[in-house]
């Protein structure tokens, strides 16, 4: 904990900057680095301006925000449940969001209403799992986890049912949403703002989270008000996940693996891990999205495929190398 926090964060920040520059510079249509700079300075041709400012930049920022939100939410969920297998979706959040979004689509609604409905679905799922896990007594992490997993399975069934009974003309939109994609996330700013806010918020909460990771009794004995802190984490993680899912559909893997990778390398100080997750998660998704749109262009790959293909070997290598 006394180890410098600045160095790793500076390196990760540099990496995310490089990833974003690459992402804005690379595409199925080539724009030279000089032209990218020119466009950013307010110059360049019409086509270049459209490509860089209206397509690539919002998409890059949206990918960064989504990746960052998911990774931070994952790290928080893992501390909350004290289970390294927890991820942002484990408590049925993405299922609830998907049901919300698909309901709106079935009703033939679009755009903003689908996003709002997804967000409402995610929050409903959150409250439902928490309420059920609470039951008549107090909840424990394992009870919360079990409730979440079962509820998630229930959402899965509802999604399948909805896909089976919805009219054929609604299917492409629904499947597209379920696969997750950052290409239609038009306004990344609210998500980026939330990400920044959370990174600032964890500075004062960070040490309490470190203590909480040792178990609730130990944390309470060391002066942490466990229940309020757990509520805060839960609501925060849900909010982050709901925002990410609303923006880009459900993109797996980032929230599970990024926090782990960082823990293997940087230790488990949440004051370092959480901002590092924001940077590394964002970087991973920006890189993955860049690959997804250029590897077999003009065909576009679902970004979740790439995150898994990039993340799995990296993770396994780190795990193999670690003690």
């Amino acid at each position: 904990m006394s180890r410098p926090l600045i160095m790793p964060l500076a390196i990760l920040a540099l990496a995310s900057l490089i990833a974003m520059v690459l992402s804005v510079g690379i595409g199925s249509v080539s724009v030279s680095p000089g032209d990218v700079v020119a466009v950013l300075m307010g110059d360049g041709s019409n086509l270049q301006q459209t490509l860089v400012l209206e397509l690539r930049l919002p998409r890059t920022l949206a990918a960064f925000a989504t990746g960052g939100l998911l990774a931070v939410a994952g790290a928080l969920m893992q501390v909350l449940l004290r289970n390294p297998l927890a991820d942002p979706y484990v408590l049925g959040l993405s299922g609830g969001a998907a049901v919300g979004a698909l309901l709106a689509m079935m009703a033939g609604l679009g755009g903003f209403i689908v996003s709002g409905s997804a967000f409402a679905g995610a929050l409903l799922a959150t409250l439902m799992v928490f309420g059920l896990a609470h039951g008549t007594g107090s909840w424990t992490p394992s009870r919360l986890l079990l409730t979440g997993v079962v509820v998630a399975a229930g959402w899965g069934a509802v999604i399948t049912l909805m896909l089976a009974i919805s009219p054929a003309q609604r299917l492409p939109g629904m499947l597209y949403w379920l696969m997750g994609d950052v290409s239609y996330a038009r306004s990344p700013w609210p998500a980026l703002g939330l990400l920044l806010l959370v990174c600032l918020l964890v500075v004062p909460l960070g040490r309490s989270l470190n203590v909480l990771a040792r178990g609730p009794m130990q944390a309470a004995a060391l002066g942490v008000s466990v229940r309020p802190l757990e509520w805060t984490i839960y609501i925060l993680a849900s909010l982050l996940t709901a925002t990410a899912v609303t923006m880009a559909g459900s993109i797996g893997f980032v929230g599970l693996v990024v926090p782990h990778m960082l823990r293997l390398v940087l230790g488990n100080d949440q004051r370092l891990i959480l901002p590092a997750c924001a940077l590394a998660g964002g970087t991973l998704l920006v890189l993955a999205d860049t690959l997804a749109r250029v590897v077999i262009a003009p065909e576009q790959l679902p970004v979740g495929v790439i995150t898994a293909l990039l993340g799995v070997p990296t993770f396994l290598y780190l795990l193999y190398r670690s003690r």
Partner: protein
Amino acid sequence: MLTFFWQRSFNGLAMIGAAFALWQTSALADQVCATDDTGSEICLEQPASRVAALSPGATELVWAAGAGEKVVAVVSYSDYPEAALDVPSVGSHTRMDLERLVELAPDLVIGWVTGNPPEQLEAIRDLGVPVFSIEPRTFEGVSDTIERLSTLAGTEGEGFAEAERFRQGIAELAQQYETAEPVPVFYQVWDEPLMTVNDEHLIGKVITLCGGANVFGDLDRLVPRISAESVIGANPEAILAGGMGEENRHWLTRWEAFPGIAATARDNLYFIPPSLVQRPTPRLLQGSRLFCQKLDDARAKR
């Protein structure tokens, strides 16, 4: 360069019939307008010169409208007419490369109401390119779509002629089979899972056109999933199937194991090249003729 106006109708998809689009008088002599199948009216200051067709069916229809040489972008599987294979692709109809599309600078995008994700069409509109969404569900819809596309592309001469040729062809078949003996028909869209069409589907309408009686015509869903048992129970007199690719009778062989079905007993298992009936385009006329011919064969074996 372009302006386009919206007129949202609340009838949504039901607006397919609003074919005979409102012609708006305009100060601009060259302005062309048409209403698409979502009920939006699209107006171009001048006929489109660079068209992007975001479904294989749309590509065929634009060609049919006489605007083939104006097509600058297509999507995967746009394989008809052959000239379409030389046009740059912008990815699949569910996941488009917007960058590539923007680079090709279309001044009109032909969308597919139920095939393209709404988010992507929205993104294209946000970039200032008008999107004309189509989805022909009737024979008249095919002719009418060709006419509207030719209006937008300024090729009305060719387009209206082709539309009329299709309209006439279908009318002739309708007349010819008006009094034909009904034949109970099962049409197999897909093998695993087993899928068919109802009477609302365009293929279902081809069956009716040819004097067939679709054994699953009353089902609610446009493309219902069914069990093999229900096919045996329905006991169709003719089974028609497509298949993966051309001249692939593989899907029909499963029915040979059930001699109890009238279609098997009378050897009425027919292959229809899916490319002729699967898309709502002028090739459907050719497909319908083949379809009717097969049903004639079945009647002859009575």
